[in-house]
């Protein structure tokens, strides 16, 4: 038998048929649905008179447009009438087509990529899709998970399949151990800094190596979440005891005999020893510092103790030009030490970093401190209602509020600023989200991507600061 990569195994297990041109009809096990990319797909089904192939494979939740302030008035609390229509449309579509939805006032509501794993709706070995590019998150469970467009959402609803072309295999290996204060977010930013935002285009990335193995499952989700920022539609990590432990006992996870059988199958979900990758990248985990982005693309990133690079030292004219444009947009000058950059707002949340471990890490830094005077708003937005509940049981909300942070209801919030949470033009934000594109968090807003601990440190200091040196 030939050796296979994890991606090869996942792919092969889901091929329904191979078309003459080499594309495959791929079977989809789990389809996550949210309000922004689904209305036109349901409309398409209605127009064609089609029904969902398998309603039990789909799970829906509104997250992008929901307010993060008081939920007690339910859908009426969405003041933006157009956003409200979109959330209402999802509710209606789920009722009409018989799809399970965690509605806005359901305790299990949250960001689609947080609730899938939380419910055990994401299981090892599955194919998972969602009309959202950060679906790569679910690859942390050795699942083949990728984002799709609305036409494909409709295609999956109607056929439970997608027409796909196989990607190439890339291994990103992070050897050694991470230093203290260095998190999964820093690892993935360092990887993107190394290979670039198009470095993974056309590939499925498997993350491996000792540093990855030692990450928690939640850390692996952060890592896979940002595979898409490296250009790869899918990122994944092999199964180990941590994966299985995490899945066990979750509402959608199998039990009894079926669990035992599943576990046996899942244990095979790793690349074979002699598997061949089309490309391998190796990083030394010990060398990775806490990271801060300084530009308008996630690849524009440096260690906290570095200075902003000088576009004049960049030999590639296209790159140099986009660096200049980025610095102009960000209102920054080359050669400024990163730690001297002052911030106006702090956002801790998003599908990258809003799980319980993220909140614990931020709270540890915030504990006993106060948000700096120049910071106008520091907000913490849990990834789901259940994360929020857990955090409150641990008293994290009190720590945050005492330090001057706002404690919000779950949703995407200022990650993409579709609801009321956003930056004003010129405002600078330390954000735990995944995209620092122009205008991402509000028109003219300036986003710096960091880990939750680094975001909390920036909130306390009023400027970026090395979380490892805090309190010294």
């Amino acid at each position: 038998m030939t050796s296979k990569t994890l991606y090869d195994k996942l792919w092969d297990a889901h091929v329904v048929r191979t078309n003459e041109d080499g594309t495959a009809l791929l079977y989809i096990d789990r389809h996550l649905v949210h309000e922004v990319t689904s209305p036109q797909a349901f409309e398409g089904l209605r127009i064609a008179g089609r029904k969902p192939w398998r309603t039990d494979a789909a799970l829906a939740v509104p997250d992008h447009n929901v307010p993060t302030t008081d939920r007690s008035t339910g859908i009426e609390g969405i003041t933006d009438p157009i956003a409200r229509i979109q959330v209402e449309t999802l509710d209606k579509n789920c009722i009409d087509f018989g799809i399970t939805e965690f509605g806005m006032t359901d305790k299990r509501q949250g960001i689609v990529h947080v609730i899938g794993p939380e419910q055990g709706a994401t299981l090892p070995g599955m194919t998972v899709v969602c009309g959202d590019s950060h679906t790569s998150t679910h690859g942390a469970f050795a699942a083949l998970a990728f984002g799709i467009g609305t036409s494909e959402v409709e295609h999956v609803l109607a056929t439970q399949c997608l027409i796909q072309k196989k990607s190439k295999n890339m291994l990103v290996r992070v050897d050694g151990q991470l230093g203290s204060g260095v998190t999964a977010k820093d690892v993935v930013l360092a990887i993107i800094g190394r290979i670039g935002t198009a470095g993974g285009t056309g590939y499925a990335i498997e993350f491996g190596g000792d540093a990855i193995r030692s990450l928690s499952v939640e850390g692996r989700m952060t890592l896979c979440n940002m595979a898409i920022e490296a250009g790869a539609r899918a990122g994944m990590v092999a199964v180990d005891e941590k994966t299985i432990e995490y899945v066990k006992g979750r509402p959608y996870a199998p039990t009894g005999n079926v669990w035992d059988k599943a576990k046996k199958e899942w244990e095979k979900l790793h690349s074979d020893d002699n598997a061949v990758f089309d490309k391998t990248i190796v990083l030394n985990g010990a060398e990775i510092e806490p990271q801060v982005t300084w530009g308008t693309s996630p690849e524009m990133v440096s260690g906290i103790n570095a200075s902003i690079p000088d576009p004049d030292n960049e030999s590639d004219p296209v790159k140099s030009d986009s660096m200049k444009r980025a610095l102009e947009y960000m209102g920054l000058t080359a050669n400024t030490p990163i730690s001297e950059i002052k911030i106006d707002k702090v956002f801790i949340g998003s599908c990258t970093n809003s799980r319980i471990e993220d909140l614990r890490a931020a709270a540890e830094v915030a504990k006993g401190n106060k948000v700096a005077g120049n910071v106008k708003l520091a907000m913490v937005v849990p990834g789901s209602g259940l994360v929020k509940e857990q955090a409150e049981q641990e008293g994290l909300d009190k720590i945050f509020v005492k330090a001057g942070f706002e404690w919000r209801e779950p949703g995407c919030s200022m990650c993409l600023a579709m609801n009321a949470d956003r930056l004003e033009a010129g405002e600078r934000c330390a954000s735990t989200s995944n995209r620092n594109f122009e205008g991402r968090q509000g028109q003219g807003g300036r986003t710096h991507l960091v880990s939750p601990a680094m975001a909390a440190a920036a909130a306390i200091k009023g400027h970026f600061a090395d979380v490892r040196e805090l309190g010294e």
Partner: protein
Amino acid sequence: MDKFEIHKGLVVPLDRANVDTDAIIPKQFLKSIKRSGFGPNLFDDWRYLDTGEPGMDNSNRPVNTDFVLNHDRYKGGSILIARDNFGCGSSREHAPWALLDYGFKVIIAPSFADIFFNNCFKNGILPIVLSEKEVDDLFKSVDATEGYALTIDLPSQTVTKPDHSTISFEVDEFRKHCLVNGLDDIGLTLQHVDDIRKYEAKRKESAPWLFASHT
């Protein structure tokens, strides 16, 4: 979906790398539950000087005269050329919908982000990958020649310049077939219902946990 065979159109140069889907259609317009009407808000942040909101009368808004879509010589353009990694970012299909609604039928760049590239084909837009050098030459020609137009022939996979020289490009056979014939791929997949059912039956045996029902 409209059929795509031969298209001749004016070329618009967007001289940027990493043009992301947030730039193509900013998030506030994603609240729409329709597929059409996004054209006036294509590249909204770059195109107008104020902040666009859904439902605004776009004809009265102050425009950014520096931005290429607002240059008279590029009005009515239907072929967009750009630099590396066009369409990176979110999976929003609103991006190709906005490009199409504005009138773009073809996008040429040295590389595209995967999801965006795929979404284009589903909506009758042809994304063409040419080498960096070829794209760079096009930028120079467009800049030098007012009214610079190209003819794109999908069946023969060629781009023809005004001087009749041609560049050939690669395209996936299946995608080409769908685009040329304007085929809906859900319909195509449903021709394989038996294969899907057979696969499901086998999977239910070997991995029953994938078919457990929850409510």
